[in-house]
């Protein structure tokens, strides 16, 4: 009879990162991406409105299409870091290995998503705000600092030491990730006390039905993509963890074999027949 642990330690275990479910989700995401591209670039119109007073064309024109990437990425980033924080609490409360791996995988996705949020936001800001960057914008600054905090968190996950001690250190940083970003958010808001961000894009009646649908669809697509990446990331991390114990049985046998050699030497020395070197 072989237990799960023995299967792992002798190296006989499934090394795939996918399953039937993730493959189906993956295909659904590919189809969903094609639909999203069609919705974002073909089906929806650019944001052009006629100013009632002057009769000029105003609005965001084609730049509005960036919203379909920017907002979902921002939502994914904040969702991912929330999951990291929850996982970190579970690690400290229950010493859960499962949650440690989930927290780590989620933070990796969160770091990428927050970087993409900042990049797409800057590209969008150039034509709309006439600047790539605003120092006094609360959400910009919070996302930026959160991104940097996430890099620190990921660095802590790669420290030396046993898996347990790394997990505990990372969990503390993971919880502080949320506390720190709230502090940053509060202090920047107080510092700058303004934002260029539109407050109520979604409820704005001016948004057309199809644009609104595309926007919501993009958010759902982004979250589905997050789930897929999280499963994959967790599985890779789990395999890495198993790999640390890969061949432990063999290593233990080798180590124990040293004892027999020493025993033989000792026996020889004690009876005075052995090599006295």
């Amino acid at each position, binding site marked *: 009879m072989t237990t799960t642990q023995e299967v792992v330690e002798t190296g006989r275990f499934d090394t795939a990162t996918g399953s039937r479910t993730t493959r189906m989700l993956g295909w659904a995401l590919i189809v969903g991406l094609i639909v999203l591209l069609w919705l974002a670039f073909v089906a929806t119109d650019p944001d052009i409105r006629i100013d009632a007073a002057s009769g000029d064309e105003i609005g965001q024109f084609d730049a509005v299409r960036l919203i379909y990437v920017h907002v979902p990425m921002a939502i994914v980033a904040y969702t991912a870091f929330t999951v990291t924080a929850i996982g970190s609490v579970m690690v*400290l409360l229950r010493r859960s290995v499962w949650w440690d791996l989930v927290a780590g995988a989620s933070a990796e996705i969160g770091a990428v998503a927050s970087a993409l949020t900042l990049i797409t936001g800057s590209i969008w800001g150039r034509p709309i705000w006439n600047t790539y960057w605003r120092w006094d914008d609360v959400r910009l600054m919070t996302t930026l*600092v959160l991104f*940097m*905090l996430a*890099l*620190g968190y990921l*660095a*802590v996950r790669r*420290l*030396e*030491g*046993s898996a*347990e*001690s790394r997990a*505990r*250190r990372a969990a*503390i*940083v993971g919880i*502080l990730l949320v*506390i*720190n970003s709230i*502090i*940053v958010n*509060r*202090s*920047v808001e*107080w*510092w700058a006390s303004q934002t260029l961000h539109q407050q109520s894009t979604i409820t704005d009646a001016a948004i057309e039905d199809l644009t609104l649908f595309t926007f919501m669809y993009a958010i759902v697509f982004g979250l589905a993509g997050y789930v897929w990446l999280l499963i994959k990331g967790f599985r890779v991390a789990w395999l890495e963890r198993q790999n640390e114990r890969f061949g432990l049985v063999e290593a233990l046998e080798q180590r124990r074999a040293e004892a027999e050699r020493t025993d033989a030497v000792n026996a020889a020395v004690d009876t005075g027949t052995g090599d006295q070197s």
Partner: protein
Amino acid sequence: MLSDVLLIAGKDLRVELRSRIALNQVVPFALLVLVLFGFALDADSSTLATFTPGLYWVAVVLAALLAVHRSVSLEDGDGADEGLLMSGLHPASVFLGKAVALIAELLLLALVLLGGVLILYGAPVDDVTLLLLTTVAAVIGVGAAGTLYGALLSGQRARETILPILLLPVLAPVVIGASRAFGDAMGSVATDGWSWLLSLTGFAMLYLAVGSVAHGALMEEA
């Protein structure tokens, strides 16, 4: 509890008194940063006076990185960190003791630097009380957060390079808050410095509390 905190703080300060690392290396480094700012900003005294609050706190935070590093590394010389682990001291006492010693060193550093900016940059002072209270509150926050993140990296070879990535984003709100409060105290920014002082105090309290709780988990296994 209190006597244990003082025991650890006294030990750290005594080590500092003997080795003089903070006094002979960290303080000169911070003063050099101030001088470099002067060179970089073209010796234009009005510019320097305007930006004194921000430049001052950047210099303090950079120097604090060195002080935190020193505070951690004096424990792993000959296994003293394990000695503390095996002693009867509560992890919270060890944390608070090390934080108190670091805060005392940083306070000395901050006051020397304050003299530096007043002389070198010719910054005016409207409100001495606000200035000093802000320094104390911000330094406690920096010292508490620094001790916590330093303990996180105890026994790590890559400590010097990871510490800045971890600590600087965390200290960003302190730089914002302390610069604003200084701006008010020096009359260069129209803002309510006292409410910034209040939030700096909140930050300091938060990190003293979080550090006391978290240090047990960090001391468990190096």
